């Protein structure tokens, strides 16, 4: 019983500074996120105060430095966390098509993030369940509604906006049956459920 208490205390100490840092103010609005192709100032932010609050909290969760900003290359994930499904290309577009170095180095504050999110929300990913099922059917060699997991990995990792191994692993966890194949209708349904 006694050691249990110690274990409880230890992570608490670690967590403390993180919590303290989170609510720290973000005074300097230096990062300009105005891409030449897309005028974000024309985007009208229409979120409710509740949404605003939620988003802010989520945004805060991604700040790993403590300056109340997030790196450019985190923006896509935040938007996705908030229920959107933008392509990488679209995200880059709203970020003003930054270079790869800028994606890693530059940081964005919440106020600048909101219109970007709004833009994505206004023009959501229109792909439907049927589209994806038909798309995956192309790789269904036996015509029995399944694809091989290995094949799907190759497809997602080599075509289009190639996904990384880690992303694919996260995606495919527990989806393959004992033969290594995937029922793609169920798969698509599952992916689109959250």
């Amino acid at each position: 019983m006694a050691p249990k208490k110690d274990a409880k205390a230890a992570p608490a100490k670690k967590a403390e500074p993180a919590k303290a840092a989170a609510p720290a103010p973000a005074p300097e609005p230096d990062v300009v996120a105005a891409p030449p192709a897309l005028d974000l100032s024309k985007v009208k932010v229409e979120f409710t105060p509740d949404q605003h609050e939620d988003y802010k909290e989520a945004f805060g969760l991604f700040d790993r430095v403590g300056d109340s900003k997030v790196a450019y290359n985190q923006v896509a994930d935040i938007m996705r966390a908030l229920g959107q499904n933008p392509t990488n290309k679209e995200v880059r577009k709203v970020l003003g098509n930054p270079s790869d170095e800028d994606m890693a180095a530059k940081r964005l504050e919440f106020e600048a993030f909101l219109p970007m999110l709004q833009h994505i929300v206004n023009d959501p990913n229109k792909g439907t369940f049927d589209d994806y099922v038909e798309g995956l059917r192309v790789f269904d060699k036996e015509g029995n509604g399944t694809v091989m997991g290995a094949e799907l990995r190759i497809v997602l990792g080599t075509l289009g906006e190639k996904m990384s191994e880690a992303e694919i692993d996260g995606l495919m966890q527990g989806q393959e049956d004992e033969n290594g194949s995937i029922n793609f209708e169920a798969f698509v349904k599952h992916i689109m459920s959250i």
Partner: protein
Amino acid sequence: MSEADKFLYRDGGKVANPLDQADWATKKLVWIPSETLGFVAGSVKEEKGEECVVELADTGKKVTVNKDDIQKMNPPKFSKVEDMAELTCLNEASVLHNLKDRYYSGLIYTYSGLFCVVINPYKYLPIYSENIIEMYKGKKRHEMPPHIYAITDTAYRSMMQDREDQSILCTGESGAGKTENTKKVIQYLAHVASSFKSKKDQVSTMARNHGELEKQLLQANPILEAFGNGKTVKNDNSSRFGKFIRINFDVNGYIVGANIETYLLEKSRAIRQAKDERAFHVFYYMLTGAGDKMRSELCLEDYNNYRFLTHGNVTIPGQQDRDLFVETMDAFNIMSIPEEERIGLLKIVSAVLQLGNMSFKKERNSDQASMPDDTAAQKVCHLLGMNVTDFTRAILSPRIKVGRDYVQKAQTQEQAEFAVEALAKASYERMFRWLVMRINKALDKTKRQGASFIGILDIAGFEIFELNSFEQLCINYTNEKLQQLFNHTMFVLEQEEYQREGIEWSFIDFGLDLQPCIDLIEKHASPPGVLALLDEECWFPKATDKSFVEKVVQEQGNNPKFQKPKKLKDSADFCIIHYAGKVDYKADEWLMKNMDPLNDNVASLLNQSTDKFVSELWKDVDRIVGLDKVAGMSDGGIHGAMKVRKGMFRTVGQLYKEQLSNLMTTLRNTNPNFVRCIIPNHEKKAGKLEPHLVLDQLRCNGVLEGIRICRQGFPNRIVFQEFRQRYEILTPSTIPKGFMDGKQACVLMIKALELDSNLFRIGQSKVFFRAGVLAHLEEERDIKITDIIISFQSWCRGYVARKAFTKRQQQLTAMKVIQRNCAAYLKLRNWQWWRLFTKVKPLLQVTRQEEEMQAREDELEKTKVRQQQTEEQLQEFEAKQQQLNAEKLALQEQLQAETELCAEAEEMRSKLATRKQELEEILHDLESRVEEEEERVTQLQTERKKMQTNITVDLKIYIFMVD
């Protein structure tokens, strides 16, 4: 088997590497011409009017190319296709690329519509074993990877099924592998047609006959090769003649015989060879392999003593002439060609060599030739069975007919030399022809009627050198005819396919395209063709090669297939536009080559030779062009008045034309199968392919032409099912859910695709497309799939991100709980009561310990009691057991005693039984004695009675007496 598979099947699955697919779709890859590589891949960056900026895929260099020079690249789905007719972008670049890709992967066979294209691998491939033959047996063409066996099997099966004669036409440059592939065809047929028998148990003698015939058929090749092949720069074993092998089958598909016809033997090889080349193999085999006896019989000398072996003994790496001599002689044995005929053949070969050693000199005072040393002539005469004096006279001053009289005409040195060379060539040729005849006789000994046949043509393809002569005209003429046959076949087949699919479309017969060129060569009159003019010219006394050219220009000058040399300086005399390209001809010596004159004096000497074999060879001397004709020409027509009667003999051109027309008639009555052999490089190197060399050949042998014709129609065909499966994605929600007929579905899909009605036709089972339409669909499909994939990937990323985010939120919540507890603890830890509590809490547990102890002790007590009870019980049981054991023992003893007692009683019983028996016997005895006794008693009693009566009588008597 797997080793062979590598050389048969293309690697990877049917679905191309998605990476390549993506590359192709996004980069707009195309082919642009390259000086060294034929074509190189590049991606179109920019289009400016007529020109395009293309970035080379390999080097990244940017080049500007004219739009017309760009050739579309096929989608990677078509990589290494087995049939190039499936390629949707059918162009030179794609064909070359596909062949190259396959060749580098070890796949030497590729189909191109009706053609089977094969590239010489220049190394041994494990794809000709009997296992492989078994694999191909009875399979349809599309079921197996491309192979000469597949072609052969198709021919064999259709012969059996349709009862239609078949032909397999192998053409190609020298060294491309025509003869090798021909051999494979024969090997396959010999195997397949004989394995039939083993299944049906036929009479064994018949089977043996079959086996022998097949062996002989296979052995015909080494003999023909020894006499008809030689080493050239391009090919160590180059066939210097064309041949058509006809294998006859009976109704059951067994080989019943074969027949070989040869064409255009390059006889000049017997007397002269270019650098690094050899004469016919047989010369070297004979000189190396003959034993001492044979050497003296054949008057053989050293290689370097023969003028006709221009370069002495040229050897071929990895080939032992001595062994091959033995092999050839063995082959003669198998063909059952007897010893004397063999020697006869070799005598001719030796005589041909000796003829070269006859040397002539110009006499001092006149132009006349003389022969200072007649050793060689003597040897020739010895070998050929002639009189030396007659022979020498026939060479030096033959009798020539002038008007009605014969005169002796002295020959100049040149004339004599020419005559000897002509004689040597003619001898060799006649010997070769006789040999073929003899082989045919051996192969045709079965009397049974052949029902149908498969003909295999192995003949050189188009020859286009810088300057071309009469021989090239003949071979190109042949190829022009063969190509016409191909075009016509293709026309017929296409027509059939369209009809079968019920498609209205008039196919143009491209066979007709070649007719003008063929007319230009072979037409008899109005206007006469080149061959006719050449023949005509041969009859004119004053004619020369030059006058012949003038006449051709005059008669054919307007023929679109004919061209005069542009510049006067041009060394060519005229050009003919063959379908394979423009060919420059030089007419030097054509008249001579066409007449092929021979010293008829010598010919008649040979005709009367004491050697039967020689006179047999020269039995038809009246057909040759005699010296008078040549004399007429060279002397400027002094003897012009005396023409040889027409019809007496035939020119080379005429003979060949006739031979060819016979061949064409035969081929036209067969179902032809086309094999195109390609030489990849001129260095005899494996794994190397020179793009331009291959392109030239593809152009020459009609593969590209075939493709061009193909493109006029609807070259891409795809069955409904596949079309729907592959392209349904382009027309979402066009086809209602549930079952739908394939054709109907395709009609709907095509309607949705809004294709121009001229771009497609819908048949009974397939959709037909114009060239390139499928590539376009494929491109659209790729873009569509990529779009969907990107969109789906975004969803997937969203899914992954949200999953991660949810986890993060949960972590956050957990963290908050922990924090709250920690904060509470921090507040508490200095509060005295808490501290007291923490101190006391462990003590609280001590008091409870006693209770627990008590409980434990109670439990222990209970257990002890229970244990004791159990122990007592155990003891009890043990005692009981002991008691029972003792009882058991006692019982056992008792049992034992009883058993013994029983045994004793038994013994007694048996003793008693024997006793009883004995007693019974005694009783029996006694009874019988009693009986006996009783009998005696009765007997005695009767006796006594008798006695008594006697006594009484006696007594009475006595009494009486007494009385």
